[in-house]
């Protein structure tokens, strides 16, 4: 009894303190980048690595500031972001339709899945020559390549997850005489949302990977172009600046996706939720 009362007293203040503690925990994510930045600064300051290989952080910052000043920074960021989002949207759309189809129907799975798996086995960069031949060197080939990259994680996660939906929940839908489309919409898709979101985040990550490949294969604008430009003109600071911008943009877009999809997943009663409370 005494112990129970003690425990109650102990839990009350900590429950109240949860909000600020959560915020301070989020700051932990900055610890490693800041430590790396400090190590980088020290390495260059004491001349441990030649400056033409690893320029000082201040030089990298100056590259970014210059781009900002002449107004091209947002053009480069904007076009890269546009390519990523357009390719991601198209890839996701195709993956959702095909994933739902092959996940739901055995016949569709038998018919389509082997081909899709075979296409997946083609190294993605191997598409580049063909896409350029078919679609030209401008936006269409780039966006298509990114769409191909984003397609597979979304398709695989959705198609597999639909097959794994609890038979018992599907039976409830059958009991109410749901048509196949109603069953997909009201039981199968909601039940697979967690896996679908995992697929979306994987697809977005691959879209960012592929945009580099797409921009390296010939572009006059974009982060990948900046990187190539830095290599051609011997400006390591520009290469590193592009890398950091890629990391920031990728992380920001993933965070935006995670935040947007969080309300769909609020029902999940899992370990991640338990850790939070």
């Amino acid at each position, binding site marked *: 009894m005494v112990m129970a009362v003690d425990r109650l007293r102990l839990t009350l203040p900590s429950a109240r303190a949860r909000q600020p503690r959560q915020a301070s925990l989020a700051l932990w994510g900055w610890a490693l980048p800041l430590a790396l930045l400090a190590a980088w600064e020290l390495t260059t300051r004491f001349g441990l690595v030649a400056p033409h290989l690893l320029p000082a952080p201040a030089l990298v910052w100056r590259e970014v500031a210059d781009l900002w000043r002449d107004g091209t920074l947002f053009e480069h960021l904007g076009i890269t972001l546009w390519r990523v989002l357009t390719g991601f949207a198209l890839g996701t759309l195709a993956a959702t339709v095909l994933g739902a189809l092959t996940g739901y129907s055995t016949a569709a799975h038998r018919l389509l899945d082997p081909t899709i798996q075979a296409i997946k086995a083609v190294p993605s960069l191997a598409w580049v020559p063909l896409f350029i031949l078919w679609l030209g060197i401008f936006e269409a080939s780039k966006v298509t390549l990114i769409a191909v990259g984003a397609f597979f994680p979304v398709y695989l996660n959705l198609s597999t997850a639909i097959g794994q939906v609890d038979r*018992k929940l599907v039976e409830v839908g059958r009991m109410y005489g749901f048509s196949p489309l109603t069953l997909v919409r009201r039981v199968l898709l909601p039940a697979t949302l967690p896996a679908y979101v995992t697929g979306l985040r994987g697809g977005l990550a691959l879209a960012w990977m592929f945009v580099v490949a797409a921009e390296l294969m010939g572009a006059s604008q974009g982060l990948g172009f900046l990187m190539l430009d830095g290599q051609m003109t011997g400006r390591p600071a520009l290469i590193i600046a592009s890398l950091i911008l890629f990391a920031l943009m990728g992380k920001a877009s993933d965070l935006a996706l995670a935040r947007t999809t969080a309300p769909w997943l609020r029902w999940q009663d899992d370990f991640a939720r338990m850790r939070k409370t």
Partner: protein
Amino acid sequence: MLAIDDVHKHFPGGVTALQGIDLTVGEGEIVALVGTSGCGKSTLLRILAGLEQPSRGAVRLDGATITGPEPRIGFVFQEPRLMPWLTVEANIGFGLHDLPAEVQHGRTQRLLHRVGLHGFAKALPSELSGGMAQRAALARALAREPEILLLDEPFSALDAFTREDLQRHLLELWEEWRFTALLVTHDLEEALALAQRVVVMRPHPGTIHDVLTIDLPTPRIRTAPEFQALKATMAAKLKLA
């Protein structure tokens, strides 16, 4: 009227789950199916629900053969089987998708109150106790206003107090709606407390061994000598198997 006519069920692999089942259930009647595991009682219920097809024979509802699930028949599963992503309210209205919005709303709200979950309309299933979740499942089945309610060991996962509470609750709902109910259970007291007839089944293959008419007065007192005597009779019939 629900008529089960010479129903057989063979599963691939040579298992005969049901053999020559004949049973007629009248309108508004509560019939309990009891038997040890493997006697095919759940299979029979799934055939009545249209979730499985009999290998031979047929099930007829007012003369029409049941070939698949239909709105006149409701089902309460052993587990609540609520959609974890929907609120309690949305779960209760889950089977009403083809009805006009105001009908959906009206029925959902009435049932929320009727099963005592109005305080939990916006809660998620993971926030409910086992008894509350099963009450929500009962409400979801009743929302379609079925003529026949099939219950597959609906209270077997609950603790003794909650179970009796829900049994009482089911009887109250039945008093109000007078649906026909078929209840599969392995709890003899549950069968005796609720049913007007108890069908005793035996396994390997599943057959009907006996049908007992329970004419104890309602509400039934579980500690009454007649109640306990009937329970002993039934237990004896089951052990013979």
